[in-house]
């Protein structure tokens, strides 16, 4: 047992070393401004999953020899990781708060999209949800995002706007977890972004929230101060904000800020 454990620890340590050295090699930088190369890591809010997956493959096709490594999660989580020194080049947050908390690590952040909420229900809408008010009915199982993450903050605003008190059954780590709880049929409804309902078309059904009740969040994007390949990072951020980038985002249901 003990030699095996030692081996496991050694292997973990080795792989960590290997990871960090490959990250350094990957961030080696562009040879010249006209020819992009190398790799960058992009931390993005989990609601951006489908859009950024598409942007990554378009960008990599347009610039052979570049690699965009994507890491999705709750913006609050990603923000904490970045402030603790995670080697990240670009951060796309689902709220301005989680970008601002990075202070001087993320200067020049630009808002690039905004997003509103929708009620997602399992196909067939078993609990017959028609409005936000229905979510307050006893017996209706509702999943929301944890209030620590942007989609949870927006969900609380929606409840406030609708003047209802909802006792959620699940308070989940990020918006994709909330969507998954609806998809698996474990809850009757979940509050997710409009874009998540569209991305999960067929697996969940959307119940729109009227404008006077709905709330929105704005997504900023920035090249981070610690980037080891700032040239490529700036190029990717520019691409996200370009006409081609906007097309992808709009097609997924994001709005212009």
């Amino acid at each position, binding site marked *: 047992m003990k030699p095996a454990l030692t081996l496991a620890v050694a292997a973990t340590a080795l792989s960590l070393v290997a990871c960090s050295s490959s990250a350094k090699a990957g961030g080696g930088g562009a040879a010249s401004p006209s020819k992009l190369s190398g790799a960058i890591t992009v931390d993005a809010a989990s609601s951006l999953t489908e859009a950024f997956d598409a942007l990554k493959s378009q960008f990599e096709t347009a610039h052979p020899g570049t690699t965009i490594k994507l890491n999705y999660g709750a913006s609050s989580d990603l923000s904490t990781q970045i402030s603790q020194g995670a080697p990240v080049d670009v951060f796309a947050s689902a709220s301005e708060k989680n970008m601002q908390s990075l202070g001087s690590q993320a200067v020049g952040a630009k808002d690039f999209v905004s997003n509103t909420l929708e009620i997602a229900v399992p196909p067939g809408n078993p609990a017959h949800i028609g409005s936000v008010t229905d979510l307050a009915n006893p017996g209706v199982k509702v999943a929301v995002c944890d209030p620590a993450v942007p989609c949870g903050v927006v969900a609380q605003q929606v409840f406030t706007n609708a003047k209802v008190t909802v006792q959620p*059954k*699940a*308070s989940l780590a990020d918006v994709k977890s909330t969507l998954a709880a609806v998809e698996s049929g474990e809850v009757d409804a979940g509050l997710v972004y409009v874009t998540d309902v569209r991305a999960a078309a067929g697996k969940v059904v959307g119940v729109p929230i009227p404008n006077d009740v709905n709330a929105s969040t704005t997504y900023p994007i920035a090249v981070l101060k610690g980037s080891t390949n700032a040239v490529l990072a700036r190029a990717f951020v520019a691409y996200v904000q370009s006409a081609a980038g906007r097309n992808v985002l709009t097609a997924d249901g994001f709005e212009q800020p």
Partner: protein
Amino acid sequence: MTHARQRAALGTPAVVLPPALIGLLFLLLPTLAMLVRTPWSRLGAIYRDQHVWAALRISLESSLEATAASLVFGVPLAWLLARVRMPGIGIARAIVTIPLVLPPVIGGVALFNAFGRKGLLGSPIHSVLGQDLPFSFPGIVLAQVFVAMPFLVITVEGAFRISDRGVEEAAATLGASRSRIFLQVTVPLVLPAIVAGAVLCWARALGEFGATLLFGGNVPGSTQTLPTLVLSVFQRDPADAPALALPLMAVAVVVLVGLRDKWLRPIAS
């Protein structure tokens, strides 16, 4: 060989000391750093603002219920594994170790497939009783029993295996029924192991995170335990998170003191 040389040869080898000390420091430093960074002056405010008391209450209630359930089902299971000689008992023992080797978060996924609204057993429960286990207090107890009961079973099984059969045979000669022998003779004989197993099981249940987070739902006041609260606080106010470790560290101290005979004494002495 002189005595002095003999002593030198049996003393601490030079290759042992530096790595041993580094290893020890490495194990100590994170806990120490957390204590150093605990915002002591804001402790009261943090405990009030971050739903700590509610989470602590839910943690204690659920872990004690999980331990009770583990005792009710785990002690008889341990006896079965220790005493029954038949083909397939090895497979039964392997089943008990599944939750030990499975990452707890996978345990959460497994629980959904078994007890979720559309799970193998959860689906009939839902249609007959209209009750769902995920995202409920019984759900977090279930998750904790799943990950913690094996600790109890394995500890108690070892004790059943080596306990004195002579006393049981004497009780049988005097006409005691098998169930009576089990309850009044065998179980008291292995009581120290049952206590040790229960403490281990309770500590594991109290610290359970992965399965509880996934299967429980992490809602403050109903399914948020202290470990899952730490995640939310770390996302929201990372600087406050060390303060939440104190109750769990107090538990760790209690467990160490309670089990000091088992863990803190060198085996040979």
